[in-house]
């Protein structure tokens, strides 16, 4: 396999100088941002979820262990007294779920910057399906 066989065997790995014409420093910056987002996301999710459960146990508010679903879906409003533990856990769950999606969003941003239309379309499709999954879940 020679280089000429497929024109441009450059580095396409995440956060490095790549075939998307990003200069090296930009790639490293994106890499640092992505890593920070993941780290903050996972840590924040853990703190929110653990805090919510600890609060629920401490206050004896065990609704979070007994009613299925997100608060607004199970008929409980977030403003209800005692909803705080549920809200914290819910936020934590959504932050945990959203964290890997942020990587996809960063990838889409890279494809957009490099004017890579096909990959941009595929990346946007991925994000669209993630958004639609929420609507599908609400609909069933």
């Amino acid at each position, binding site marked *: 396999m020679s280089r000429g066989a497929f024109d441009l065997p450059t580095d396409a790995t995440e956060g490095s100088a790549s075939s998307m014409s990003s200069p090296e420093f930009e790639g490293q910056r994106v*890499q640092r941002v992505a890593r920070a987002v993941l780290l903050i996301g996972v840590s924040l999710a853990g703190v929110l979820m653990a805090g919510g459960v600890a609060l629920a146990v401490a206050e004896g508010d065990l609704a979070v262990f007994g*009613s299925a679903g997100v608060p607004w879906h199970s008929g409980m409003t977030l403003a209800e007294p005692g909803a705080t533990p549920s809200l914290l856990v819910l936020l934590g769950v959504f932050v945990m779920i959203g964290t890997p999606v942020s990587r996809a969003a960063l990838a889409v941003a890279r494809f957009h910057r490099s004017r890579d239309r096909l*990959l941009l379309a595929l990346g946007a499709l991925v994000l669209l399906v993630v958004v639609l999954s929420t609507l599908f879940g609400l609909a069933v």
Partner: protein
Amino acid sequence: VFPVSLLGSSLPLWAELLALALVAAGAGFLGGMLGLGGGLFLVPTLVLLFGFDIHFAIAASLISVTGTSSGAAVQSYQRRLTDLRIGTFLESGTVLGGVLGALLAITLLRDRGDILVLAFVPVVLIAAYLTFAGIRVDAPAARAPDGIARRLRLWGVYFDDRESRRVPYAASRSSAAFGIAVSAGVASGLLGIGGGVFKVPAMNAVMGIPLRVAVATSNYMLGITAAAGALVYVVSGVVVLGWVVPIAVGTLLGALAGIRTQQLAPIRRLKGLLVLVLVAAAVVMFLRGIGVIA
């Protein structure tokens, strides 16, 4: 199915939460150690040991997979191995499969947990076979890219720090790998597994992508697939949020510890034993699915 109990015992709430966290950490550790992710061990454990409804177990596992994917990515980020182009190409099919699988589980199979339990059996057995057979190639022989790969420029170079050299690669048989990726997505949404056990061979053995790039790219993909599937379950109301916390946190910590042990020689020798554990889980799930055991 609530309140849950460990093997029918009546523990106080804090003890149930602790037991869940510890067991989830164990499942995450085994999954991380074998490179399978936690779901394959976690779902049977939650169903068989704690008596959770399988829909909840699947949802909790998917949420845990999102955390594990992010945590593993933080651990391995400095290696710069995730191929965003190949990952995005395959993920466009996998994420659709994931949402379809989740929708199938909570609509047509909403009252047929037995079918979901049975569906788990072949997936666990295939995963056990792939793990035991070890059909992985560190650096496959370089191939010419196929039509799809040329169009999407699915090739690259990664730096192999063990051999201190740059390794070029290019994707071939992209459509076959895409088909496997879609199937892996359906399995993920339907059964709560990450699906890396299928995606890594699809990229490595089918497309000809080096193993380390395939593993990192699979991790990138499975977090997104699990997120889409988890959203369907969470928003539809299948999940009891409080019980997810010890499971997700335990799995995350266990998986991160397991990944660190992957290269230890004694652990590699344990692989056969752990594969047997997987097969045993499949047998028990089968018996549960056909109603022989409760």
